[in-house]
């Protein structure tokens, strides 16, 4: 595998101004992804994981920080400058029910990005490419003239993936791509995404709240809490040796489908995520943490490398 860094994000911030004060949706997130790898971003609702994904693609203007894609600093790029880059980076959305135009057929939906980016000229070529894409994502040719409402969630998500693939991107941000699907269909889509990565050398940012899905899917995992990364490590290390109290709590909160035997005891986490508006300068997880010490009140801890490639933001570690 090539070790070329395809995307680097440095100290990315995205604030929203609200009547109550500044909302820190993303607050100083940094990471790198190598080509062909998958970074999983996990966290609860409101932790800023989707905002991070959208800001990287510049669907939202970042407030601060730097986004380097393939070596270019795209942070200040205008919409026009971004346009050619849209072919390189794409997104797959969570809800296959609302992210597709209900008045377009499958053919129109999948060929839209090809036409929009003027990748192919003749009608015959466009049709051939659309059918090829449908085959790639496992949609039978007979659906070519159907509308989204005639299809189930899994097939709709396949259309979403085909649309993203149409421009031959290098990076795809998948924002909860399987959350709206049933387990048996979820497995089909996860297998498809994995196969595409192998065949086309795609790089993924995989945003989800479901730890079991990221574990299965990602090379590296970043755990987010209130706009910040609290722990970042290769997948295997994170699951074997979680260090941040929030990561531990998240892992132990997953209900395991095991009855009897060696079922681990659950460790509950108290309280709920606090408001990301006007945050004090202290550990953001402090109010829910079981092992708070004096040092937690002195400033917001930053990510530190505690063992090779394993970063944790906790003052107690």
């Amino acid at each position, binding site marked *: 595998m090539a070790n070329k860094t395809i995307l680097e994000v440095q100290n990315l911030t995205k604030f929203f101004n609200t009547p109550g004060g500044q909302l820190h949706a993303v607050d100083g997130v940094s990471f790198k992804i190598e080509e062909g790898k998958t970074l999983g971003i996990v966290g609860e609702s409101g932790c800023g994981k989707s905002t991070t994904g959208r800001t990287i693609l510049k669907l939202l203007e970042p407030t601060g920080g730097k986004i380097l894609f393939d070596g270019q600093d795209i942070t200040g790029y205008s919409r026009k400058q971004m346009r050619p880059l849209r072919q390189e980076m794409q997104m797959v959305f969570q809800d296959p029910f609302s992210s597709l135009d209900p008045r377009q057929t499958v053919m129109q939906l999948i060929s839209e990005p090809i036409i929009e980016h003027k990748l192919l000229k003749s009608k015959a070529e466009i049709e051939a490419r659309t059918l090829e894409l449908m085959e790639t994502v496992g949609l039978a040719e007979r659906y070519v003239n159907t509308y989204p409402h005639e299809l189930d969630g899994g097939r709709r998500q396949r259309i979403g993936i085909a649309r993203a693939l149409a421009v031959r991107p290098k990076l795809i941000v998948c924002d909860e791509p399987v959350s709206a699907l049933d387990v048996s269909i979820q497995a089909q889509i996860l297998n498809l995404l994995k196969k595409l990565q192998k065949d086309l050398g795609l790089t993924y940012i995989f945003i989800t709240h479901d730890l079991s899905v990221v574990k299965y899917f990602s090379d590296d995992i970043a755990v987010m809490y209130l706009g910040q990364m609290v722990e970042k490590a290769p997948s295997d290390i994170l699951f074997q040796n979680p260090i941040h109290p929030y990561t531990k*709590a998240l892992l132990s909160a997953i*209900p395991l489908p095991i*009855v009897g035997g060696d079922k681990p005891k659950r460790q509950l986490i108290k309280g*709920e995520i606090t408001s990301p508006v006007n945050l004090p300068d202290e550990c953001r997880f402090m109010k829910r943490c079981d092992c708070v010490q004096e040092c937690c009140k002195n400033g917001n801890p930053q990510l530190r490398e505690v063992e090779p490639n394993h970063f944790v933001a906790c003052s107690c570690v």
Partner: protein
Amino acid sequence: MAEDLVLDIKNLVVHYETEDADVHAVNGIDISIGKKRTLGLVGETGAGKTTTALSILNLVPNPPGVIKEGEIFLEGKDVLKMSSADLEKMRGNDVAMIFQDPMTALNPVMTVGDQIGESIAIHQNLSKKEAFEKAKEMLKMVGIAESRAYDYPHQFSGGMKQRVVIAIALACSPQLLIADEPTTALDVTIQAQVLELMKMLIQEQEMSMLLITHDLGVVAEVCEDVAVMYAGRIVEKGTADDVFNHMRHPYTEGLFDSLPNLKQRGEELVPIKGLMPDPSDLPPGCAFAPRCPYATEECSKAVPQLMPVDGSETHFVACSAYNHPEFRLRGNKDGK
């Protein structure tokens, strides 16, 4: 034994009769729940889980829903034969329901205290003031400060709202609690808190529960008995140990194989191929046969009935393959 059953559903058949088609949502199911037992009803979208739950309260929207056949005994009384006055007394008092989405289950223009007090006032003949006092107690029980009884639903987070919904459901100490995907809309850490709370309250109040979910992890956490539903039929039922550790139905196996959390990274998931059949056009014989890796010609001839597994009193499976005594699932943990 039968007297101990809080809920006993016999051969329930529910159809939705629309202009275009006759949708066979529930096709003859038998389930029962004993005193202080929790039954998990598992299945995918469209399996008929929610329709089953609504039938228990005789709340299937009619039209288009029609309960075609069957009996539903709630502590010995047939719900389907009750008068509407009796049904009204029963709902909320003997049986209560928790819905999936706490955001839409609450009235946005009523304080949560009034909402909890409402059912108490109706069923226990208390004044509004007394009911409000009791509502405060209920809030405390589900872990919310009493002072918040004067707040409106929008002032609560998702997890807190679900606690309020639980408080409403438990306000009249029902015998049976029906929880329809109670934690699906919540974050994992909040889900863990709510499940823990439900487990505790059910034990304290000696209730029975029917938990409807698609999440096998939640079932393992909370339920003693499990019934797996597919295309309107129960395909396997038994104790949690029976179904999780000695599963027999190919669909149950497929559900477990689709779960990513048991797998190591890189290992391919084994999804169930294809899709659930259209309930208005079910295949003849076993509805799972077209997706089943073990299916034989025999499977599409007759609908398999639930049969005891190896003479077990608790564990039943509906699969024609077991007509051949040597048949075993590939991944069977029994190792047979």
